[in-house]
């Protein structure tokens, strides 16, 4: 029996790119659930690794030598250095704190997990379909990856809004940058290398600043939660 497929499968390169993009989005959703600071940082590292792999795939498939450099640099910075910096900055936070629960960020969501995921699916749908409606065509990667990268950006906003702990908010900001990297890979894979590198080092500064802010915050209220920051509330 032969049946004509109504939606033809994408080719190998677009298919791989789409699978990686979907993986990035799924890891973004995973950040809603992580209960430990360490796991949250690991999830971010995994997401960054996926972006680097995608850059490498595009470099190989489209013969863009710049992207090899970019893939290497983004791997070194986002998978190794930024998580390392974060871990270094946050190490020892708990020794003054109260017991082993110091890196516990479980249940910091302001809604239940299932409701948050449903909300984020709605937001992601908005991003996906609004970008699809624009009808952008990229010579390098399929439009699906572009639409999903927009969903990653929007879902990272939801993450920052819904989780009330500084660690998730910082990681949400970093993963937003991952979404933007994905977008730039799709629409402007030939973006001058120097610009990409500037973005990456920007991220390093952000990691330092956020790490310090988290430390300061933890020093003041002895927890990673932002639920107690109510002194300015009327």
């Amino acid at each position, binding site marked *: *029996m*032969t*049946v*004509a*497929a*109504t*939606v033809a*499968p*994408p*080719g*190998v390169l*677009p*298919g*791989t790119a*789409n*699978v990686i993009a*979907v993986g990035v*989005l*799924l890891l973004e*959703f995973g950040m809603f*659930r992580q209960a430990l600071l360490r796991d949250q940082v690991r999830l971010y590292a995994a997401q960054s690794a996926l972006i680097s792999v995608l850059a490498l795939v595009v470099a190989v498939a489209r013969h863009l030598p710049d992207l090899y450099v970019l893939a290497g640099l983004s791997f070194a910075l986002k998978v190794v250095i930024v998580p390392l910096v974060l871990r270094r900055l946050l190490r020892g936070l708990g020794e003054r704190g109260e017991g082993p629960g110091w890196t516990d960020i479980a249940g910091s969501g302001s809604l*239940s*997990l*299932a409701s948050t*995921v*449903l909300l984020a*699916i709605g937001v*992601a*749908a908005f991003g*996906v*379909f609004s970008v*699809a409606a624009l009808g952008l065509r990229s010579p390098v990667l*399929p*439009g*699906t*990856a572009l*639409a*999903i990268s927009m969903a990653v950006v929007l879902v990272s906003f939801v993450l920052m809004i819904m989780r009330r702990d500084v660690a998730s908010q910082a990681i949400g900001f970093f993963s937003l940058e991952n979404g933007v990297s994905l977008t730039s890979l799709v629409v402007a894979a030939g973006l001058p290398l120097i610009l990409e590198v500037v973005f990456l080092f920007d991220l390093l500064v952000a990691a330092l600043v956020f790490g310090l802010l988290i430390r300061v915050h933890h020093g003041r209220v002895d927890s990673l939660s932002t639920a107690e920051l109510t002194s300015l509330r009327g």
Partner: protein
Amino acid sequence: MSPVLPIPLVQALQVATIAAAAPVVSGVIAKVEARLQGRAGPRILQPYYDLGKLFRKEALAPEGASWVFLAAPLAAMTCYLTVPLLIPVLTTFGLPLGYMGDILGGGFILALASFLVAVAALETGSPYAQLGASRAKTFGAITEPVILFVVFAVALITGTDLPYALAATVRSSASQIVRPAHLLAAAALFMVILYETGRIPVETHTGTNEFGMIEEARPFEHSGPYFAVLKWGSAMKQLILYTILINVFVAPWGLAASAQLGAVALAIVALVAKACGLGVVVAFIDNTFAKLRLFKITEFASAAFLLAVLGVFTLYLGGG
């Protein structure tokens, strides 16, 4: 050249294979699970002995239970015997009755069986069985949207929602397998199957009574042959769902392309082997994860929903 079997016989063999092989798949899972935990575990054929023992025992019904209580297990069994007619159990080509219903039709029949068991549980008046029935229906309603979106994904890929058509599409080329929509839909369906068959992380699949029980709590008041039919039915439901996942989504290979005796026999062996393989994966998951608290099951369902919805999204964008 082996003899060609008449088509009605092949059709009957589909049902017979599911009915006969279901307990052995459960036995393999229980054995593997026990080995992973360092126990010797029961014999692989133990479920058959259990069923044989129960069939010889006396049947009792709680006081005040009407005929529904006794009819429900048999009616549910009828449902489980009907579904294998609709799905590709042994053959790549659609058998005459295979077009009676699509994936949704099969889903409805399985839902009807589950509903009948729940009604029988309510009939008992036992709070524990009623709790299980109520929970099963509640969480069943939560996983329903996931199934719908999986069906949507299938329909967008094949233009129909006949299971035979999707299996043929998956077999047609490797690019049909690695496409994101297919991977996401298969993963979502697998999560639903974990729920429907009462496995970790939703429910512990053992005989011990506990508060978190859902499906396993329903047949508490049944006994003797009726309980045997319910147990057999739930093993068959498990094998039916495994068959759908394997022969429609994940690995539709090894099916008979003709009604020749050799090909059909090979298909039976292949099906049981593949189902046992999937059972080993399930046993591994059983031993790797902790059971979710009852109110965390919505998180599990929302994750499955996310996968299914993303699959449909990528299809709509034309890149799935």
